[in-house]
């Protein structure tokens, strides 16, 4: 049975190895140079005590490559689901060859178990190699970006891509099993996988661990860390300050508008007198605005703002939880495959 699984999977395996080899060569060739310039840039800018400009230039230089590499790792699980999962059983049912396989002296439970385990492990290994390569390659760029929680960053680093690949593979397999046609199964796999990949970062991931909510009184010390004012609806609308008190690398999930002592949002023009450097459109930025000074001006107004975030220390726990979640889904889908194949029989 292992031989048959390998024989049927051989062409796809060769394709995967070729792609992985090309990706490795590409990552290593460009990565070594990038790691080297990051180290030299960092050394020189730390000496001059101004790293922003130099590192931004480095980050910008690799931006296109960075996006392309992330796209590759994002796409890999979907491609695995489509090209390895959907045909695994779907094509057998479509061409009737399951009737050959199921009438050799091997139970169909064993047949399914070996196919699922063999190709499933290959899926995870493929995603694992790609994820490892990207995590290593993009290390300096992630340092410059400072946040590992950005949706594309989180989903393409460390261990979650392995779990996505396992899940996408199981999803493709069961789609093929239920639809009994390869092409529709591929389409359904892609649609469902994209849906889940949109749903999870927006709805599930923020809630995998309890988030922290901190309320800041707007004064000199809290605003000294602010980096912007964002208004909603012009000068008479709500606004909030970004960057309050949250340590670097944290994932800010939401922040309330700035409110007065009776918890009512106040309009931007109410604090106009304290914002000398900012134009009437309410947009603010780092350049030219001394937020500490704004803070001391606002201190006696008794204003506050709440920020909800996941601290950077939650990065690995969330990676593990999310991987676990996808592996549980994988196990459920695989179990459903076994149940279906034993109960429904053809």
């Amino acid at each position: 049975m292992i031989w048959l699984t390998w024989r049927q999977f051989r062409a796809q395996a060769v394709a995967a190895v070729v792609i992985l080899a090309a990706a490795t060569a590409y990552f290593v060739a460009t990565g070594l140079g990038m790691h080297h310039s990051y180290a030299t840039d960092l050394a020189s800018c730390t000496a001059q005590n101004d790293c922003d400009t130099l590192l931004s230039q480095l980050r910008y230089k690799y931006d296109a490559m960075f996006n392309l590499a992330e796209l590759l790792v994002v796409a890999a699980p979907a491609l695995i689901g489509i090209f390895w999962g959907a045909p695994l059983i779907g094509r057998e049912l479509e061409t009737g060859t399951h009737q050959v396989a199921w009438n050799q002296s091997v139970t169909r439970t064993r047949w399914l178990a070996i196919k699922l385990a063999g190709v499933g492990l290959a899926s995870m290994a493929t995603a694992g190699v790609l994820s490892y390569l990207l995590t290593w390659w993009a290390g300096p760029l992630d340092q410059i970006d400072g946040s590992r929680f950005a949706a594309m960053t989180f989903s393409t680093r460390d261990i979650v891509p392995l779990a996505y690949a396992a899940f996408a593979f199981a999803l493709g397999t069961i789609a093929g099993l239920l639809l009994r046609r390869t092409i529709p199964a591929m389409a359904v796999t892609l649609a469902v996988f994209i849906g889940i990949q949109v749903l999870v970062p927006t709805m599930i991931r923020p809630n995998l661990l309890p988030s922290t909510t901190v309320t800041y009184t707007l004064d000199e010390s809290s605003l000294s860390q602010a980096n912007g004012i964002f208004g909603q609806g012009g000068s008479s609308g709500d606004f909030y300050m970004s960057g309050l008190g949250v340590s670097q690398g944290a994932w800010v999930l939401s922040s309330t508008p700035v409110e007065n002592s009776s918890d009512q949002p106040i309009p931007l023009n109410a604090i106009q007198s304290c914002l000398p450097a900012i134009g009437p459109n309410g947009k603010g930025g780092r350049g030219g605005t001394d937020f500490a000074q704004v803070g001391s001006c606002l201190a006696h107004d008794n204003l506050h703002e709440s920020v909800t975030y996941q601290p950077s220390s939650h990065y690995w726990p969330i990676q593990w939880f999310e991987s676990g979640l996808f592996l549980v889904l994988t196990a459920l889908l695989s179990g459903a495959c076994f149940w279906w194949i034993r109960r429904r029989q053809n």
Partner: protein
Amino acid sequence: MSAILHAQALGKRYGRRQALAECTLEIPPGHVVGLVGPNGAGKTTLLKIACGMLAPTSGRIEVLGEQPAADPTQLARIGYVAQDTPTYPNLSVADHLKLGAKLNPRWDAELAQARIEQLELDPKQKAGKLSGGQRAQLALTVAVAKRPELLILDEPVASLDPLARRSFLRHLMESVAENGTSVILSSHLVSDLERVCDYLVVLVSSRLQLAGETDDLLAQHYRIVCTRRKESDLPSDLEVIWAEHTDRQSTFVVRGDAEPPTGDWVADHLELEDLVLTYMERAADSGRRAKTLKTEDAR
């Protein structure tokens, strides 16, 4: 030795459609069984249940004394070639033999090799590039080299031209004779089965119509041609299977354990094909009558 197939009130329902109903059947060992019936009669359903591809929705079935596809041992005892003789299109002929060798404990590599040579199949050829007849032969080779006690073949010759049909059946009979394998093969054409089967099962509109050894069936059935009369005027120990009347003449097909007594009629044996067609017509007729009655009831 246990019966090839023992079914007790076996039934299979797909949603609202009854594909097989109330099938009770016991086929003694050592036969080449022909399963005949029009398209959609339930032949494929019965064979799929027998090899464990399908689970029945009612009744019980034992094949060679065991539940179908219960475990690897039972799987090894039965060879099955599905309708349209599926093979893996991307695997070569040699790959198919290797597949058989890897997946079957009793695999007979010499037999498989000899058959492939005899058939002049190129081992390196992909199965997807074979002709229909060659594919059927390859599928049969894999099933036969497994050395099963029972071979189940679902319409194996349906898509073959007359020459390939004859050669396929000849090869089948050779390997059956060599190994003493029991066989069940289905067809909607009696002529395919006539030469090879010594046991006949007739299935029409999901119900069993007739089962028995071919010779017995032929010996028990007569066609009686006589002047026009009612069925009740015939000797009472004759079961009337079919009656047809013209203005002056009546034709009956009857079944009886002994030869019908001489009378004012001509009694003759039937050809196997006529016999089967009679049962098929009868079943189709009673189906039509039942429908008419239902419509009348509804009024």
